[in-house]
C-alpha cells in the first residue's frame, strides 16, 4: 500500500529527491565509465547534487535576496548556504580545470582518453 504521507513528503521536498538522483547519476558515471572526460562530467554532476542539497536548505518559497531595501517586511532566504556554495562552485571549477589539464597531458602521452585503453597500453609495455 502506498503511504500517502510519505509520497506527499517526497513531493514537497522534491529538490532533495532530485539531488539524491543527481548524486547517484554522477557517482555511477564517475565510477563505471572508462572515458576520462565522462568521469569528470560525472564528478561535476555529483558535486552539483551536493550543491543543490546545500542551497535548498536555505530556500524559502517566494523569498527574495536578503538585500537591505525599502520594505523590511519581506520574506528573505537564508543567504549563508548560497554564499557557501559559491565557494564550493569555485572549488569545483578549479578541480575540473585541473583534471582536464591532466587529461590533456595523458592524451599527449597515450593518444587516448579511455582508461581501459590506457591500462591496456601500459600492460603491453614489454
Amino acid at each position, binding site marked *: 500500500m502506498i503511504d500517502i504521507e510519505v509520497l506527499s513528503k517526497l513531493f514537497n521536498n522534491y529538490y532533495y529527491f532530485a539531488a539524491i538522483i543527481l*548524486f547517484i547519476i554522477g*557517482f555511477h558515471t*564517475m565510477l563505471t565509465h572508462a572515458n*576520462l572526460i565522462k*568521469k*569528470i562530467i560525472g*564528478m561535476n554532476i*555529483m*558535486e552539483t*547534487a*551536493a*550543491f543543490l*542539497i*546545500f542551497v535548498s*536548505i536555505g530556500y524559502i518559497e517566494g523569498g527574495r535576496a536578503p538585500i537591505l531595501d525599502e520594505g523590511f517586511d519581506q520574506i528573505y532566504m537564508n543567504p549563508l*548556504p548560497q554564499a*557557501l556554495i559559491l*565557494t*564550493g562552485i569555485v*572549488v569545483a571549477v*578549479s*578541480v575540473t580545470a*585541473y*583534471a582536464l589539464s*591532466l*587529461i590533456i*597531458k*595523458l592524451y599527449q*602521452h*597515450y593518444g587516448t582518453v579511455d582508461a581501459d585503453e*590506457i591500462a591496456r597500453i601500459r600492460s603491453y609495455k614489454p
Partner: protein
Amino acid sequence: MNLNYEHLPVIIVALLLLAAFLEPIVYRHKKSWAAPLVIASMAFFALSSLYLMAAVNYHGPFNYYLGGWAPPFGIELEIDYLAVFLLLTFSVIGLIAIVYGLQDLKHGLKDEVLGWYFTLYLLLMASMAGISVTNDLFNMYVFVEISAISACAIISIKESRECIEASLKYLILSTLGSGCILLATAMLYMITGHLNIGYLNDVLPRVMSHYPNNILISLGFFVVGYGVKAALFPLHVWLPDAHTAAPSPSSAVLSGLVIKVYAAAFLKVFLKAYPREIFLEIPVMEIVLFLSVLAILYGSIVAMVQEDIKKMLAYSSIAQIGYVFLGFSLMGQRAVAGGLLHIFNHAMMKSMLFLAAGIIIYSTGIRRIRDMKGLGVKLPLTMGAFTIGALSMVGIPGTNGFISKWQLALGALDLGRPIIVVVILLSSLLNCLYYMPIVINAFFGVKGEPELEIGKVPGVMLYSILFLGFGIIFFGIYPAPLLAFLQKTVTAIL
C-alpha cells in the same frame, strides 16, 4: 597597534598564502629570491608554531573570531592543544622536507616549474595549518579542497606518465571524498543550522532523536570522505601509485603529513562535533576500528612483496595510518593520545625514510630493493638513518615508534581489548619482516656484480635526514614532555 599572540594563527595561514601567491612573481623576475622566500616563510611557520605552543601551554587555549564576528555567524578559529600540536608537527617536518627538497628538486624538476612547485608547497602548508586551527566545518571543507588540489599538483608537476596517471586517480577519488564531506556537512547544517563545531556539539544531542536519519547519513559520508582522503583501508587504492610516483620531498610530505591532516580532521569532526552518546547508538567507531585493524594487517602484508622501495614505504603508510585510526576509534584517553603521538612519530619516521630513499635514488638511481646489496658501505650515513627509521617502524625500544605503539597497546588494554595488542604485535613482526632484510642486505649483503656508481650527496640532504634521525632517537628516549602535553590535549577533547 595591538599585535599580541592571538593573531598569530591567522597570520600564519595568511602569510603562507601571501608567500604562495608572491612566489610566481618572484620566480619570474628575481629567480634567486624564490628559494629563500620559501625557506623564510616555512621557518616563520615553524617558529611561530613553537611560540604558539608555548603560549597555549602557558595561558591555555583561546579562540579567534575572523572579522570580529562571534561564532554562530562568523568563522571561528579554535587554537587548542590539538591545533598547536598539529601546527608544530606540520611546520617542522614541512621545513625539513623543503630544505632537503631544494637540492633534490633542482635535480628532478624542470627549471620553469620550480617556482610553481614552491607555490603549491606553500598552499599545501597553508591549507594544512588552516585545517588544524579552524573550528568551522565549511571552512574545513574549503581547506581540505585546497590541500587536495595542491597535493595532487605536487605529484603531477613531474609530468611523467606515472605521475600524471597517479595524480588523476588521486584527484578523482579525492573529489569523491570532498563531495561526501560536503554532503555530510549539509546534513548537519540542515538539522542544526550551525557549522561551528562547538555549537554542533551543543545542539546535536537535542536534535538527534528527531532526525536519526540525517545523523546516520552524515556519519557515513564523513567516514567515507575522510577515509578516502586519509587512505583508510578499503579506500586506499590511490595511495601507492601517488606516493611512489611523486618526487621524493613530495612523497615525504604527502605520506608524512597530508594523510595525517585528514585523520586529524576526522578526529575533530567525530570527537569534537558529535556528542559521545551517538557512538553508543550507532557503532560507527567499531566499523572504523575494524577497518583500521584490516589496514594494519593488509598494508604490512602487501608491503612485503613490493620490489620498489618507495612503493614499499607507501604500503607501509597504509598500515601506519591504520594505527592512527585505531587510536582514534578506540576513544579512550590513552588510545587517542597514542593515535596523536603516532601522527607525530610517523610523520618523522616516514618522511625520513622517504627522504633517505630519495637520497639513494638521487645518488645511485636504484629503486629496486634487490639491488641495494652493499649500499651501507657506500652510503653509511644515509643507510644508518634508514636503519634508525626501520627500527622505529618495527618498534624497537629506544625509538619513538615504540612509544606510540606502547601507548596504543596500553590504551587498548585500558578498554579491555587485548586482541588489539595482538594485532599491534603481529604487525610489528610483519614490519620487521620487510624492513630488516633491506638493512641487513645493505650492510652485510654481498655486493652485486656491477660496481655501483655513487654520485655525491649534497650536505643539506644528509643533514636533514640525520636531524630527523636524531629526533626519532630523542623522542624515543625522552618522550615525557610530549606525553604530558598530549595528556592535556586528550583531556580537553574527550
